[in-house]
């Protein structure tokens, strides 16, 4: 998408935010096509892309967590509070003005708990990591229990108990105006209720499976299958969108500005040679050629 929005001609190497460069274009095409080559079979191009992805991803995430999780909240924080202490200023924490030494002491507690967590590396059976772990589990459980119970249980249960008629519509009296019928609303509410009731009935294991319960369970299974089918449909939708975006990117990098041949004057036809010497075609051609040579050599070995 950024390709479509970029107005100026790309430079060979440019790290300005929001701009793309020629070197980056070639790399994008190589990694995209290298990953796609896995659809044929596992190969060195795919392996290269996979290792680069894992390496770069790890490096990026490590730096982000180092900056946001250690450097700023620990190192910089301590330095700034020490400066406050030297200047004789108070520090505002949670709406209260406190002495900087107290702020430092309070920050040392989580730091110590973090170090205790790492103690497992030196002594696997030590008691030290259990304390921070217990605190983490407790805090997380409390956070989850309050917020999630409210949003995913209480509110949803209340919403399941709604009237069968739509209060925003006039109702059955207005037969002449089809826009005001609420028959579809009522029908969807009945389907929802039957589906919910039967899906819950399917998971009722404490009673003997009578024919009635088996029937309810059967409808519940059909409801669940329709739900899973819908979810699968959405998943396919997402995957196709990703493929189209990659094709869009490759098409963008086949523009004359990225080609090995000099870009023609604006308004003139770039010609076949210009497109053929653009990153997607050159890199795609090389990958296909080398994979074909590999396949032929393997076939030669297997027949020998």
């Amino acid at each position, binding site marked *: *998408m950024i390709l*479509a*929005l970029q107005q100026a001609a790309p430079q060979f190497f440019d790290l300005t*935010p929001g701009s793309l460069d020629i070197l980056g274009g070639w790399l994008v095409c190589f990694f995209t096509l290298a990953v796609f080559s896995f659809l044929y079979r596992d190969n060195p191009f795919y392996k290269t892309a996979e290792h680069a992805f894992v390496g770069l991803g790890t490096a*990026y995430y490590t730096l982000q967590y180092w900056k*946001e999780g250690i450097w700023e909240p620990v190192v910089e924080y301590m330095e700034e509070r020490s400066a406050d202490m030297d200047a004789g200023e108070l520090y505002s924490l949670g709406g209260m003005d406190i002495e900087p030494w107290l702020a430092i002491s309070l920050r040392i507690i989580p730091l110590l708990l973090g170090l205790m967590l790492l103690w497992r590396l030196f002594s696997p059976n030590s008691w030290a990591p259990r304390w921070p772990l217990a605190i983490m589990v407790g805090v997380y459980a409390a956070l*989850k229990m309050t917020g999630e119970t*409210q949003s995913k249980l209480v509110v949803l249960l209340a919403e399941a108990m709604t009237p069968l008629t739509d209060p925003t519509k006039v109702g059955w009296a207005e037969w002449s105006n089809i826009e005001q019928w609420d028959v579809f609303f009522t029908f969807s509410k009945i389907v929802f209720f039957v589906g919910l009731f039967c899906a819950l009935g399917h998971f009722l294991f404490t009673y003997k499976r009578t024919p009635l319960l088996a029937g309810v369970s059967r409808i519940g299974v059909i409801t669940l299958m329709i739900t899973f089918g819908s979810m699968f449909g959405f998943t396919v939708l997402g995957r196709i969108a990703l493929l189209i975006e990659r094709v869009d990117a490759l098409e963008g990098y086949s523009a004359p500005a990225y080609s090995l041949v000099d870009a023609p004057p604006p308004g003139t036809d770039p010609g076949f040679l210009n497109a053929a010497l653009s990153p997607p075609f050159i890199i795609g051609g090389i990958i296909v050629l080398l994979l074909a040579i590999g396949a032929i050599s393997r076939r030669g070995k297997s027949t020998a």
Partner: protein
Amino acid sequence: MAAIHDFDRRWIFLAMGVLVTTLYTLGSEKALTNSEYVDSYYATIEALPEGSVVMLSADFDPASAAELLPAYTATIHHLLKRNLKVVNVATWPPAPPYTREEFYRIAPMYGAEYGTDWTAMGFLPGDDVAMGNIGQSLRSAYPKDDVDGTEYDNLPLMAGLGDNMEGVDLLITMSAGYPGILEWIAQVGGRYETPILAATTAVQTPDLFAFYPNQCVGFLGAATGATRYLQLIDELTDGAVEEVKLENQKRMMVQSWAHMLIILLIVVGNLIYFFGAKGKQGAKA
């Protein structure tokens, strides 16, 4: 029949690749009809008075940018065009570069200034705990911004905000998974009165229907939702998103045909399965 059972699935990949590439190169745009969820997303932003503060959370990464970046771009255009103030946060590490890139490009179009009209507070580690922290106190969650380390109180936009989401009129998340819209609803929606909007990936969209409209006021489901939204704001933004809209409409046309191919393959696969099973039963008898 045995030959069909031994059919190499790579032919299907190739067919899909050829179909998508050909249609994308030769095809034209396809306009979509409106949707209740997208209309509600649009109407909620439109209903905010000028100068309201919106928290925009970028909870996505490059793997989901194909689906969420068009929605993100469109939302930024809409917010800035309406003179709303935007506080940018992120709970996914790779998201902040997208925020900076998009705002550096779009903000000058509407004369929006950093610090007064928009801020970029950056990534906060901790997933749902971080979200709870942001809701509780933006000041303690983000002592400095993500651009050049400016102190919280030196950013005029931030200085006007209080604890417990005080001063934040709307929360919008670009949600690719965990943590995302469901965690925002649990940690912020369930505790404060702030309404929530979302743009989601296709995989996450089915989860959201249950939360609409009470806990999530409106949402853009996948690239389809983003395209519908771009159609809605095109006129409002004086054609600033025209190019992105046309590109997305073209993608929708390709997507429709790709789905037709998948449906065809599912039907053919099932026919082969059922006729194959019948053939085997006949052979046993």
